[in-house]
Each structure stands twice: as structure tokens, then as C-alpha cells.
């Protein structure tokens, strides 16, 4: 109950930022909220289904590049047209990559997803036609002005939260948890678990695509670095810091990391060590992440 109230307060606070019109906070919190969406989508895989994927950044990047392509080559800008196309692109990539990677399990799954991420990264990085290592601009952006973009991101966050909440409370969500706990049992009970995992993978990939779309729309710039395994690793870290297996955990994690990155640097030049130490401490002492602290007080 307290948790729900806190989340509503947080949502309203984020909404209020939109009315300040301050360009720094609009972009800063906009980026943070995109991080929330990205991390929540990954948590559907990591925290609920038990699939540790390093391909997540790929869907973020594909959708972002699609927006750049649509805007620059076809003059398609309006979110009504571009959003569905970009999401469909991310979903399609997720179907292909998911279908292939899900044949492997455990560590092998992690590594196959890593392979696909790296392949895409190099594909975009080495091809001048796709912008090469310098990336591409999104010449015309779907949302006019920062405030509009901000509210779009805010709405997306709220919708994604609501949709994921619904999915997780539907029979499908319970089945995912069952698969994480004991896939063999779920299979012998008659669940076609490969199909469930693939659907989860595609949902997560599509939502990651939404995050990528918003990111490209907010900044108007896409770069192959968005594909790399470092990005995938970063979002994994976000999920774990916040607390996997909850929806509010990744939100906490994304907000925390955004602030730590922003202020940590002013605190010490060795701020990467600071993040390293933070990660190690959380893994060792807070296996349930920050959300674990909230639960403890509940």
C-alpha cells in the first residue's frame, strides 16, 4: 500500500517536472524515465522469466535507427506513423534473435545474445551507409519541443508500467514466474515454455524499442554505441541495483544511476571505481537490490 502511494507520488513529481519548462531538467529526467522503461522491460526477462539477455540494447538501437531512417529518408515523422513502425521493427528483431537464442539455455543463452548484440554493433559501426561510427541525426523529430517530448515519455512510462503490471498479473505472468522457478515442471504440466519465453522476449524487446524510439526522439541523435554489450550490461546493472523481480525496482535503479552518474563525477575523479564498489556492495549485501530495502520496511 505504502509502495503504491510512493509510486503515485513519484509519478506526479515526474509529471510536475514537465511544467517547469526547465530545459535541463526536462532532458535529464526525460533520459532518466527512458532508462526506467528500458530497465523495466529487461526485468520482465531477467527478474520474472529468469533469462539474462545481453541483446537488450540491440532492440533499443534498432528502433532508434529506424526512426532516424524514416525521418531522414522518407520524411515520416509523426509518432502516429513512426512509433508503430519502429516498435514493429524492434519486435521483428526480437522474434528473430529470440527464436535463435532461446535454443540455448543458461550461460550459453547469455553468450548467444552477446554474439547477436556484437554482430549488430559492428554492422552499424562499420557501415558508412548506416552512419558508421559517428552515428546519425534524426533530422525531424516526432515531438515538437522538449516539453511535448517530456510528456510523451512520461505517458509512455506510466503506460508501460500499467501494461507490465497487467501482464504480470495475468496467467501469462504467473507462467513466466513458474518458468523461472522450474522450467521442467512447467513443461511437464503442459506449458509450451519455449513459446512463453519467446513471447516474453518479444514483449521485452518491443518495450526496449519504445525506449530507443523515445531516446532518439528526445535527442535526435543515434549512434552504434547504443547497441554495444556495455549498454546491455549497464541496463542489467540498473535492474540489479534497483531490485530484479519487481516493477518498481528497475525504476529505482534507473533513477539512482542517473543521479549517481550526474553527481558522482563532481564528487571524485575515480567515480567509475565508486560505481564499481556500489555494484559489488549491492551484489554481496543487497541481493534484492534497493527494492529489497523498501520491502523490508513494508
Amino acid at each position: 500500500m505504502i509502495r503504491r502511494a510512493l509510486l503515485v507520488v513519484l509519478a506526479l513529481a515526474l509529471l510536475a517536472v514537465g511544467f517547469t519548462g526547465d530545459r535541463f531538467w526536462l532532458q535529464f529526467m526525460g533520459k532518466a524515465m527512458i532508462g526506467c522503461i528500458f530497465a523495466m522491460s529487461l526485468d520482465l526477462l531477467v527478474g520474472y522469466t529468469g533469462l539474462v539477455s545481453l541483446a537488450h540494447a540491440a532492440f533499443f538501437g534498432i528502433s532508434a535507427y529506424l526512426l532516424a531512417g524514416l525521418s531522414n529518408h522518407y520524411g515520416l515523422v509523426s509518432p502516429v506513423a513512426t512509433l508503430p513502425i519502429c516498435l514493429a521493427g524492434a519486435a521483428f528483431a526480437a522474434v528473430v534473435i529470440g527464436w535463435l537464442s532461446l535454443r540455448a539455455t543458461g550461460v550459453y543463452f547469455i553468450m548467444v545474445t552477446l554474439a547477436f548484440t556484437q554482430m549488430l554493433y559492428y554492422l552499424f559501426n562499420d557501415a558508412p551507409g548506416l552512419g558508421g561510427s559517428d552515428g546519425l541525426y534524426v533530422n525531424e523529430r516526432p515531438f515538437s519541443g522538449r516539453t511535448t517530448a517530456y510528456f510523451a515519455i512520461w505517458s509512455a512510462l506510466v503506460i508501460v508500467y500499467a501494461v507490465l503490471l497487467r501482464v504480470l498479473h495475468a496467467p501469462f505472468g504467473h507462467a513466466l514466474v513458474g518458468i523461472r522457478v522450474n522450467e521442467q515442471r512447467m513443461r511437464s504440466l503442459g506449458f509450451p515454455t519455449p513459446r512463453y519465453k519467446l513471447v516474453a522476449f518479444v514483449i521485452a524487446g518491443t518495450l526496449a524499442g519504445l525506449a530507443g524510439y523515445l531516446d532518439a526522439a528526445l535527442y535526435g541523435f543515434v549512434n552504434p554505441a547504443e547497441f554495444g554489450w556495455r549498454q546491455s550490461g549497464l541496463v542489467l546493472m540498473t535492474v540489479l541495483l534497483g531490485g530484479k523481480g519487481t516493477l518498481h525496482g528497475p525504476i529505482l535503479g534507473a533513477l539512482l544511476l542517473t543521479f549517481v552518474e550526474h553527481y558522482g563525477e563532481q564528487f571524485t575523479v575515480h567515480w567509475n571505481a565508486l560505481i564499481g564498489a556500489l555494484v559489488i556492495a549491492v551484489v554481496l549485501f543487497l541481493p534484492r537490490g534497493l527494492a529489497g530495502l523498501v520491502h523490508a520496511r513494508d
Partner: protein
Amino acid sequence: MSFSLFGLQVLNGVEQGLLLFLVASGLTLVFGVLGVLNFAHGSFYMLGAYLAFWISAGTGSLLAAVLIGIPVMASLGFLVERLAIARLYKRDHLSQVLLTYGLVLLFNELQRALFGNDVHGVDAPRLLAFRIPLGSAQEWPAYRVFTAAACIAVAALMRQVILKTRFGMRVRAGASNAEMVEALGIDVRKLFSALFSAGTALAALAGMLAAPLTTVYPGMGENVLVLSFVVVVIGGIGSIKGAFFGAMLVGLSDTFGKVLLPGLASAMVYAVMAAVLLVRPRGLAG
């Protein structure tokens, strides 16, 4: 491509694979027996290379660097295992990935603080500072031949240790069934500590041997790390033999990828890995 050039490229690929094997062998041992995905393995490689640079700059001898550096790195490995890794054996892969990723960040800062950000060259031992002609136009430095030989020697030594010694038997047993080893009354904690130190020392040794060839620079561990993961996974986790063939495959496909499909060369290695895993989901040896 002429036949002699083809032969030369095969040699290049094998040579690249051998060094990769040295790094990957430690990774696959730790991976197979301890069940820990160690992202910090690349950092040990990097620290090894920096130690080689630092000690050999001071003493003028790469051999001295190896003799001093290996015990130092093995102790570091022991400490890391005791303080951090040992708490992870019962945890999921995600925790392991993240904890060791945290270690990577820490070690990178350590390197910055101790050695700075510059690129350094390390000289090969004077004894090996000559070149061997290779075909009509190209030569190979003797040191390159030496490292290749050293990698083969280490591989042979590892094979002997694993097949013929009591420690090796325990390692093999641990790789197939850790609970069984415990049931047999072997102190798993000690076994794991020893193995992790050995893995760390192997990575550091690879870094030291490679230092004269690659030069020493910040971030050098990460490139090697990702490739070693590819090798380990292609080979099948825990299998030294698999890692050997995986390393050869990666070395050769990277070499020929660069020559034949330069635009897609980087993606090549990953495509090979994906292809292997789609046919054999648990690697070549799995």
C-alpha cells in the same frame, strides 16, 4: 590468394588462436569448475601486461617480470576469490556477471591510478630479438614464435596436470559434478581457491607474454575478454580441449574474415559463434 599466402594466413590464424587459448583456458577452468562467469578475467590479463611493463622497465628483464609477476597475480586471484567470488557460488549468473563487472571497473581505476593512461611498449628479451624469414617478403619476429611455443607448452603442461595429477583429477571431478567432489571429502573451498588463483595466473601470464607483441594500454583487457568468452563458449564450458579448438576456430575465422570479408570482419567471429551454438547449443565439446 596464392597457396603460399594461404599457408601464411593459416599460420597467422593459428598463432593468434594460441595466445587467445592461453587467456581462454583460465577462463574456462574457472567457468567449468567454479561455475562463475568471470568478467574480471580480462582485467587480470591487463594487470599482467602492466606488471610486465613495469617490472621489466625496472629490471630490464621480461623473465624477471614473469617470475615476480605470476606469484603477485596468483595472490591477487586468491584474495579476490576469498573476498568476493567465494560468496557467489550459490548465486545466479546475473549476480556473478555484475559482481565481476564491478571488479572490472575497480581494476580499471587501479590501473589508472598506478600506471596512468599512456601506451607503453615492452621490449622482447634480447635473446629473442631477431627475425625469422617467412616466405620471400615477410618475416616473423623470433619472440612471436617463442610465445606460440610457450602457449603450446603451457597447453601441454595443463593437459599433463589435469590428466595425471591428483589436483587435476579433482578439477575434472569438480567440472562434472561439484557435489560429488564434496561428497568424496575433498575440501572444495581449497580446490576452488587454488583453481581461481591458477586461472588468474594464467590470464596474467598471457598478458605478460603478449605485452611485447601488443603494447600495453588501458582497456586492453576488454577486447581480449569478449573474444575469450567467445572461445570458451564455442569450445564448450569447462573443456580445455574445446577451448583449444575454439581458439583455433576464432583465430582462423578472424584472420580470414579480415582478408576475405573486410567489411564484416568484426561481426565474423560472432557469426561463427552463433552458428556453432545453433548447431551445438552446448559448444563443440558439449
